[in-house]
């Protein structure tokens, strides 16, 4: 049991770090080249050398292309019409066909974007603008220079590791807490305890402390591995994230108590826990940008404690944000955590009293 608990955070780190933020690249590309000229080969080279695409299919007919896309061998296709080299030689406009698999709208949009960029560069290369020195690449009029602040490498791990600190607490503390209480209820030992002179507060503290401690250990482990192994930069203060995480732990403990109240068996508790965790994962900004949610859902996210702690942890890690800049989140966290915890506590005591 214990080894599992220690391995889990590391496993999550690896999975989340490498998977979630992976940039869209190496997309499977199908090339239907009906021109077969030097220029058409240059087009294909431009695509592959960008690093965004890997040629996985070379259909020779439209029907084959359709099969390749249907079967998932390719998610993007570029069709080069016959006569491309002629058009270029005669300085006539030419058009390439880009087909994207819209099933995955994110990938398809990004793919379309990449493709457009590549084609735009190719355009400048094939058709030097009159009056401009050959080879001059204009960003078609606007030179947009993108600078990413605070996380210049845009490594997803850098945003995932801080997030995982909170996530780890949620997974273990909340989950284990609910399991532990329900286990005692199942075994009937809960009733045994009532017969002893132990105070309710003492019982709860005794129950809560080991899991809180475990949570701290897991967070520390994640932190160390994240910073040392994954080399995530830490620009913030331990005090800030420590406070935030403690508050979050309170809310996790409270939720764990509430789950245990609703379940009669451990299996139910586990299932309920998992089903509470999924919305937290999905709707808190952990993986999916909240800004894109429909309005009603956007407002719903204000109810999720994970949302706030994510902002706190990520901001502090990468931007060095202080208590001052983060006060709205801290306030929300405090209200939530204390609120949930006290609620859970009162329900729990009430149940104990029955």
């Amino acid at each position, binding site marked *: 049991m214990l080894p599992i608990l220690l391995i889990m955070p590391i496993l999550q780190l690896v999975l989340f770090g490498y998977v979630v933020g992976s940039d869209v690249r190496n*997309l499977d590309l199908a090339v239907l080249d009906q021109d077969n000229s030097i220029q058409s080969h240059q087009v294909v080279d431009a695509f592959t050398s960008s690093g965004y695409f890997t040629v996985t299919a070379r259909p020779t007919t439209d029907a084959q292309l359709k099969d390749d896309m249907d079967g998932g061998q390719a998610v993007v296709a570029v069709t080069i019409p016959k006569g491309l080299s002629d058009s270029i030689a005669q300085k006539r406009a030419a058009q390439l066909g880009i*087909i994207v698999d819209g099933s995955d709208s994110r990938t*398809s949009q990004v793919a379309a974007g990449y493709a457009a960029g590549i084609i*735009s560069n190719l355009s400048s290369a094939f058709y030097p603008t009159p009056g401009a020195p050959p080879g001059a690449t204009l960003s078609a009029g606007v030179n947009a220079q993108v600078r990413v602040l605070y996380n210049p490498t845009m490594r997803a791990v*850098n945003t995932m590791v801080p997030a995982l600190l909170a996530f780890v607490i949620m997974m273990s503390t909340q989950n284990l807490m609910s399991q532990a209480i329900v286990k005692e209820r199942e075994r009937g030992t809960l009733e045994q305890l009532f017969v002893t002179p132990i105070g309710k507060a003492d019982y709860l503290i005794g129950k809560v402390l080991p899991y809180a401690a475990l949570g701290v250990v897991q967070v520390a482990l994640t932190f160390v591995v994240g910073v040392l192994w994954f080399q995530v930069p830490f620009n913030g203060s331990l005090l800030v994230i420590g406070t935030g995480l403690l508050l979050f732990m309170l809310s996790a403990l409270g939720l764990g108590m509430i789950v245990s109240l609703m379940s009669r068996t451990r299996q139910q508790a586990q299932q309920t826990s*998992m089903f509470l965790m999924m919305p937290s994962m999905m709707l808190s900004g952990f993986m999916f940008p909240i800004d894109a949610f429909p309005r009603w859902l956007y407002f719903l996210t204000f109810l999720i404690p994970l949302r706030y702690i994510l902002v706190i942890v990520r901001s502090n890690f990468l931007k060095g944000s202080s208590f001052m800049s983060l006060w709205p989140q801290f306030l929300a966290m405090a209200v939530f955590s204390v609120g949930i915890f006290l609620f859970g506590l009162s329900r729990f005591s009430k149940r104990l009293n029955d």
Partner: protein
Amino acid sequence: MRRILAIARKEFIHILRDKRLIAVILIMPLVQLFLYAYALSFDVKHLPTATLDLDRSTYSRQYINALQQSNYFTVDKTLGSYADVDPAFQSNADKVVVVVGAGFGDNIAAGRAGDVQILVDGSDSTSAQMGSTYASVLSRIFGGKILVTQVEAKGLNAGAAGGLTASTRTWYNPEGNSAAYFVPGLIVVLVTMITVLQTANTLVKEKEMGTYEQLIVSPIRKIELMVGKIAPWAVMGAMDIVIIAVVGILAFGIPFRGSVWLFAGSSLLYVICTLGLGLIVSARATSVDSANQLAALVSFLPTFMLSGFVFPLSSLPAALQWLSYLFPARYFMVICRTVFLKGGSLAILWPQIAALAIFATVIVVLAASLYRERA
């Protein structure tokens, strides 16, 4: 055979007698379905954006307007100077700051490139990535329009100057219905979570209840026990899949272009895989606690991360890609997406189906062999 049926019937009774369980299995997934199908999309929209216009020309205003018009950016404030940039980010009020350089308008008018800086908050990498991509694309489009206007103003035919353009078509989901992408995937994830947990508990519970020993003393064979345990859950799982699918189709208007039989058959195979996985956990776990933890570990995370549910597999580092081949979810995901959005047929999908069939057999046999027939 009789023994298998006896076990299956007993399991059914257990299920039916636990009302809570039924509610959880049927209702929870539907609730989740609704939440996520609405929420999940990678279309980053409404990115809170601040602008710093150092040029204040017609062109700069046009540019900023172009950004605002697209749904991607929501310009909610204008900054006064560079000094305001960091605080804007620190307060997490804005994710993007667009700085239009002084001289932007003059440069454009003179046929040179205008300079713009797009500053993105890297602490939210998804938004950052999307934001920067969209900003670049929009800038290019804006520039392209300007170019055309300029060229035409000079009396030239824009097309005569040549130029390579692209005609982009989106297949299968042209309207960009995110639900169409996610719902099939959600089916896989939700069903996996439910099924693995059930069978993971079942053998361990027998141990805890003491009935395990009775099973040992009876002449039942290990493989019979496994099959009997899986059968009722296979039925429940398949039902679940159908329900979620139907609701998904009706409520979200996602298409279903493939063969129902193909879908049903592969669903059954997949469910057997996940149930078998749960049995493997169950066969060796010593307590309900570790069974639960292991089940979560084995079902939830890999299905979520390594099946191509949200994150395209082609983007993963090679090691993780290899790993994903070990999980049946990957194959079922392809089948689901294809059947819903593209159509697909046995001829196209046979590799995935074969993979599922192999997995199903191997897993069940493995579970049987891992099960200890002694206490």
